[in-house]
């Protein structure tokens, strides 16, 4: 499991006027909408979001309580076949987007919010606070995210809330490091020095001067984290410590069914696995577009 890093995070140029920033945002939006990757990503993600919101209202069968013959191959009746208990795989894959699309964004937001705060404080203050926090960040980063998440979830026991907290907190140091390096570059610039000379407080400078200028990398980081959150939650569910049954969550379904692939039952594993892949690819396409627009 790769903990994502982003050593070449783009750094937004400092622009003073608010109007200029608004103008830049409009332009960026226009550029984004012309990128096919961004559009494809949005369509796929939008589709999963619709499935997640409408849930049982649009699934062809009841994803939980409709049992027919177990492990039937795909047919006209069951397009994706049935699972071990005879439930419709298509319905479960559709409904399976719900849990992950709640857990992953929450975890990403938590990680980015806390990480940004930490990064701002570390980057702006330097000194002893930075040194201490940097050590702790480094210690966390030296272990694979999945391993630490696993350890914590085994100890704490899995519930949706705990999964969100653990994944979010584990993303924090990674975000903090990215934000810190962006802030370090900013704090030497004239506008920060000017604000200091004006006698502004550190809090004000961080919140009103530096933050708006590092918002670009933070937005990119948020999308990237969202993708990794889906990946991480799916992997944790596969390892049995993420989302718990009877949820039709994709990672969980793969872990429940993958051993049956040996007996030739590939459909119960393949479709949820493809769903995971499509969802992460969609988010990554969006993140990729955002990143290249931000660096232009």
């Amino acid at each position, binding site marked *: 499991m790769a903990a994502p890093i982003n050593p070449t995070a783009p750094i937004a140029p400092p622009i003073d006027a608010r109007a200029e920033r608004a103008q830049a945002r409009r332009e960026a939006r226009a550029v984004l909408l012309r990128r096919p990757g961004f559009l494809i990503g949005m369509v796929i993600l939008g589709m999963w979001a619709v499935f997640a919101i409408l849930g049982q209202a649009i699934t062809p069968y009841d994803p939980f309580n409709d049992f027919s013959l*177990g492990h039937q191959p795909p047919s006209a009746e069951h397009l994706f076949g049935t699972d071990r208990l005879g439930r419709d795989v298509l319905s479960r894959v559709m409904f399976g987007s719900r849990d992950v699309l709640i857990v992953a964004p929450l975890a990403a937001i938590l990680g980015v919010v806390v990480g940004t705060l930490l990064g701002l404080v570390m980057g702006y203050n330097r000194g002893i606070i930075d040194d201490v926090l940097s050590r702790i960040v480094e210690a966390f980063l030296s272990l694979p995210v999945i391993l630490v998440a696993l350890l914590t979830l085994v100890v704490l026991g899995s519930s949706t809330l705990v999964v969100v907290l653990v994944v979010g907190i584990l993303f924090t140091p990674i975000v903090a490091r990215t934000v810190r390096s962006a802030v370090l570059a900013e704090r030497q610039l004239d506008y920060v020095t000017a604000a200091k000379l004006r006698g502004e407080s550190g809090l004000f400078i961080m919140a009103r001067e530096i933050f708006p200028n590092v918002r670009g990398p933070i937005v990119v980081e948020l999308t990237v984290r969202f993708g990794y959150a889906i990946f991480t939650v799916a992997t944790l569910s596969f390892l049995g410590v993420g989302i*718990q049954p*009877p949820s039709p969550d994709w990672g969980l379904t793969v872990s429940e069914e993958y051993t*049956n692939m040996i007996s030739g039952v590939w459909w119960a594993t393949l479709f949820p696995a493809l769903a995971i892949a499509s969802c992460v690819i969609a988010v990554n396409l969006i993140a990729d577009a955002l990143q290249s627009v931000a660096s232009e």
Partner: protein
Amino acid sequence: MDYSRLDRVRRSASPQELDLVESFAQGRITRRQFIKRSAVVGLSMASVSAVIAACSNTPSATTPGSQLPAGSASPGASASGSAAAGGTIKIATQRPAGPLDPIGMQDLSAYGLIAQSFEFLAAMDPATGDIGPGLAESWSPNDDNSVWTFKLRQGVKWQDGSDFKGEDVVETMKRLVAAGNAGIKGVIDANSTKVIDPATVEFTLVSPNGNFPYLVSVFNAQTCITPAGYATGTTLDGLANGTGPWKMDSYDAQTGAKYSRNDAWWGGKTPLDAVEWVFFDTIGPMVTAYQGGQIDAIVQFDVLTGAALFNDANFTVNAARTSNHRQIWMRTDTGQFTDVRVRQALAYSLDRDAMIQQLFKGQADLGNDHVIAPLYPYFDPSVPQRTRDVAKAKQLLADAGVPSLSATLHVAQLQEIPDLAVLMQSQAAEAGITLTPAVESLDTFYGAQWCPADPKDPPCSGAAELGIVDYGHRATPDVFLNAALQTKGVWNSSQYSNPEFDAAFVEFQKAVGVDAQKAACKKIETILNNDVAIAVPYFYQFLSGNSKKFTGVYSSALGQMFVERASQVA
């Protein structure tokens, strides 16, 4: 019927033996049950054959144990083709969850590894699947089952070269009593075991028990006999010893264990040279490994994951009926299930046949909301089987004044149990009962829902009002009855307390003879079926198996796979 032959046996028989012979002669128990019981009361094999021959129209046409026995799995030992001497068998098992400590171990994998080197007073007889002579050659009780005398096998040596003696048995039993072994707890105490002479050990029980030999047999896995000087906490890999056919060469907790032949074994030279146990975390890779030719046998697998093995012409699947079951407990003292009608309603909403089909593809026995599994010889089938009746369930709920009911169903992330919870949720919904499954990790489930340590008295009084807990195979139902159902039992999560039941249980333990045991069981079954402190939907089969390249492999339903008689097909 050949009465003269029967009489010869009758004249020399003890009261328990006589009772058994009569039960069989009068057709009250089946031949299979007769063979099983005769091993317990110590009737000699010669007498058993004589009785069977006497009672059969075609004498000696069938050999005992030709059917697939219960509680065990033994493949057709008839080796077609010549057997080649030598070779190694590779056995797949789950990675042990704890140290290879013969006294403290608690998981099936450790049971299997220990049973390669250590032996029991009563071993498993591959022919019947029941207990048979082991380190004890024979045993017999006194008239009221309170004193049991075991005759020890002579000339047995420990792998370190010293002699096996009665003192070894006495010290082993003391250690087991000190460790609180669940099987012998309350049956013997530290002073119960005595050496009478070098070939005889005597057990004076705290309370009479007709099933005692089971409690010191392979079916109570911790009762393997360890040397007199063995310190509690010693592990097999720390000190490779035992009286058994295999000597441990190496053990790596991550990957597996290796054994080679013990040339000094009392049973003679094993056909195979060596045994290798290979560890896996899950069953899926075991199946893959078998298909890839990397292992030869699987200690245990489940129906769904092992589906491919059933269709494999080169693989022998051994399905053994067991008392493995799930208990759906409902708190009888507090919460929404205190009214017996509510508990019955939930039991009536269950579609047990559908569960057995969907979860086990039919490889399970129906449960009737009590713990007397159909494989026990004293199971009484006359108690009516509860079947699904949604209308009745609704009626019972209405009578109890709860037209609708919602409850959280607590389960652990273990084997088929989450799926069982899903099926229950769906089936109960039709009777107007809304169940919400809450699946938790093993630690959380056992520690917070099933039997929290606090409050201590009565035990499990902190349990959730509804949940499903797993119970493994036991050769006798005593542990299920005393721990889960007796008033103040240590695992009594439903807080069930019924003096009538407690009395019936005592009657069962004291019962001398099959008839008396069966009569007591009928009471137990009737009471439990009516009270539904626990619902028991099924007893599932234990599945193990091996490649047809090997014959003579047999296994218990406790993860013990025995290969001392196994050989490779040339």
